């Protein structure tokens, strides 16, 4: 094949470079869209770029970004987690219950401190994640079905906890020693809301895991070619299980944040959040087939969705049109994802010819 390399013609090289450019643009589409949206909304709505609005925007984005970051790992393995919205709802209700109703044992009702309430919340949500992981990795249930089931189970559990009612007044009582819950969602640090810092921290963690650790690499390997991953000695079921656990943990955090912000836990919290998260992940360039994508992309995707929603509100676009526009954006994102894969396959010969490995 060396002769091919040497006889690379000018038109080939041209085709190769334009192929690279197109692919690069497609890969960076989320950033491009985000920049375009920011410019568009700042021009059309002068109050869009104010510090106050951006702070509100960041808080909204944080919710979907947290879910999207957790979802990214699941999708990278070729799976999907539909249960995150329900887990968030369940998490809020568990926290609400332990703070307002306490835990009865030994004949008396104990009101655990907030830290314990949070811990209990995480544990309960991890159980759902464990169930997801077990169903998918060990029982071999298709991820869509498994997590669709747990979507209902977790939502039902959330409704059962309070019989469908809301737990109000999560601020706690001094005499019970369980004050401080609202701080999770409402406190500020260095001028930014706490949830935004959580998003930053979780993103940093997830980025390091995805790009710098053996586990992250295994996630990509499982999504890229599960058989080959297994033959390479990667413990595929374990990798999958951990991704679902992590996703449920992120969902629990979101549930806590929302309950804390509202100082109330409502069993319907988080409905359809999973779709937002999936949309953010896909917008960020992660393939639903697995193996391709990044945590960074998902963060940007979450920003796109957040900015879009926020900006449309500021422009006074009708609520119903907002829903339509969001749908259009998601459909476009998936269509472009397909286009990218197809173009990549098509351009591969060009890319290979100029490859440093030189096709020999």
């Amino acid at each position, binding site marked *: 094949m060396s002769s091919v390399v040497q006889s690379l013609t000018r038109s080939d090289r041209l085709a190769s470079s334009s192929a690279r450019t197109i692919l690069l643009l497609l890969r960076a589409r989320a950033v491009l869209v985000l920049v375009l949206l920011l410019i568009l909304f700042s021009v059309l709505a002068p109050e869009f770029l104010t510090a106050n609005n951006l702070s509100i925007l960041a808080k909204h984005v944080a919710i979907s970004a947290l879910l999207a970051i957790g979802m990214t790992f699941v999708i990278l393995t070729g799976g999907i987690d539909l249960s995150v919205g329900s887990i968030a709802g369940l998490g809020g209700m568990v926290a609400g219950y332990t703070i307002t109703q306490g835990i009865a044992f030994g004949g008396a009702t104990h009101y655990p401190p907030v830290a314990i309430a949070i811990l209990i919340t995480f544990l309960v949500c991890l159980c759902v994640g464990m169930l997801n992981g077990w169903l998918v990795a060990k029982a071999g249930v298709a991820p869509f079905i498994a997590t669709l089931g747990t979507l209902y189970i977790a939502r039902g559990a959330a409704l059962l906890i309070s019989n469908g009612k809301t737990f109000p007044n999560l601020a706690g009582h001094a005499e019970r020693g369980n004050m401080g819950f609202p701080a999770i969602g409402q406190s500020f640090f260095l001028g930014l809301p706490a949830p935004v810092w959580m998003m930053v921290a979780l993103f940093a963690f997830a980025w390091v895991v995805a790009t710098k650790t053996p586990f992250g690499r295994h996630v*990509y*390997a499982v999504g890229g*070619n599960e058989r*080959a991953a297994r033959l390479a000695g990667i413990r595929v079921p374990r990798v999958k299980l951990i991704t679902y656990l992590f996703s449920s943990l992120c969902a629990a955090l979101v549930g806590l944040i929302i309950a804390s912000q509202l100082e109330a836990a409502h069993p319907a919290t988080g409905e359809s959040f999973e779709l937002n998260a999936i949309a953010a992940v896909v917008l960020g360039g992660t393939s639903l087939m697995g193996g391709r994508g990044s945590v960074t992309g998902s963060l940007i995707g979450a920003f796109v969705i957040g900015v879009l929603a926020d900006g449309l509100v500021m422009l006074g676009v009708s609520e119903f049109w907002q829903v339509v526009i969001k749908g259009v954006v998601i459909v476009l994102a998936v269509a472009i994802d397909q286009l990218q894969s197809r173009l990549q396959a098509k351009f591969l010969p060009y890319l290979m010819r100029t490859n440093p*490995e*030189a096709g020999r």
Partner: protein
Amino acid sequence: MSYPDIILEARVVTKRYPGSVALDRVSYRVHRNQVNVLIGENGAGKSTLMRILAGVEKADEGQLLLNGEPLMLRTPRDAAANGISIVHQELAVLPNLDISENIFAGRELTRAAFVNRTGEDIQSNAALVRLRKPMQVNTLASQLSLGCRQLIELARALSQGSQVLILDEPTSALSTTEAESLFTVIADLKNAGVTIIYISHRLHELLYLGDHFTVLRSGKIVGDAPRAEVSRQWIVECMSGRSDTSDLTAQTRRTSGKPVLNVRGLTIAASVGEEGAQAPVHDLSLEIREGEVLGIYGLLGAGRTEVVEALAGFRPILSGEIALRGRKLKIDGVASAVQAGIVLVPEDRQRDGLIPELSIRENVALAGSKGSFLSRSKETQAVRQLADDLNIAARDLELPVTALSGGNQQKVLLARCLMRTPSVLLLDEPTRGVDVGAKAEIYRILRALAQKGLSILFTSSEIEETRTLADRVLVLCQGRISAEFLHEELTDEALFTAASPHVLPLETTPSVSGHIA
């Protein structure tokens, strides 16, 4: 009792799959620091044996010994820990990771909790240099040629410090130069004390590389000898064997009917996929006459499947003319091929043929019903008729198709094709994964169909099958027809020789490649 020259041994190993015995009390010895060649036709059990040695599968019975000590292998990890690694026939490369990541997949080097990328790169480079193929270690595997992907797997095995390296048909997808450099690498490895198990269909290679030869046939070892006692003829005789299909062989052969299918200059693009590309088919011409059984014989990767899939409309045709009974035909999809009367029984029953959730009747009748509504009674009647004709052994046609044995499942697919009253029947490896008795039965059915005037085109990688079934044979080698034989001209050796690509300039040292600036 110990054998200092035996590094690895499989003792009385048996492996059964549903419906067939892949390995039947096989005892196999691997000679230390030699190139141990394992030969056998498709389905002889070579790959199964190797998968057991590499910990990918577990034997039902028997035991393994490493240096005379009993060895338990539960996973590929166990095998690697014991210094045994395998380069798989279907390349197990992760397309979305780069070279270095692939080499260390599943056993990453770490510093603290993080991947030690620098260390991995250095070791990857070292392994690639040892393989005489320096490459940029951050190149994505999906952008590499097949030969390079193979080298990645070799590099992975090397960096694990393997003592026993299993190469399962390593050259089947490689170009000539790539194969040559692989042989240099194998010689290097042998000099470095590595024991190699080498599986291939290509006689030239085997005779050039091999130190010890073992032949498997239908799950049994039928030949075992050092290089000095091995000749080309010995291999072919061991491999092909003879079985009781003499009644078929004696049948009159027809090659004189009216031409039915006429193909001129068929060219098919190389399939670029994750799984591994096949040689593209170049400018292939063939003609099938009425009532003729035409065989296409070729080794793995010769392009057999591509030809029949293209004729069945399942694979795009780049150029070429196809005429059916003198009328020009445009095949641009399966529907148009079926419309014209060309139907295919695919090679991989499970993947491309059967619908496991459906019953035998539904599988046969699939897409065979005409009109807008299904008529259950007519359908059952038609299927019953075909099932009786083909002798499908099923108590009840409403049973799930998965309840049938391999041979009967194959007959279900055959019945499905016949339900469309084809003028040309294409079969890709007609008896893949079918036991011996059912094989002979399928041959008889096909011969009988031909007697009634049906034109049949089948592909095969089995010498015996080709010899038994075909009136006329085309040999396909690297996408081109390399020979044509009438039934009476056919000899095993001529067939095999025509199918083997002439890879080796035996006298010259294979050139060292990889120095492109």
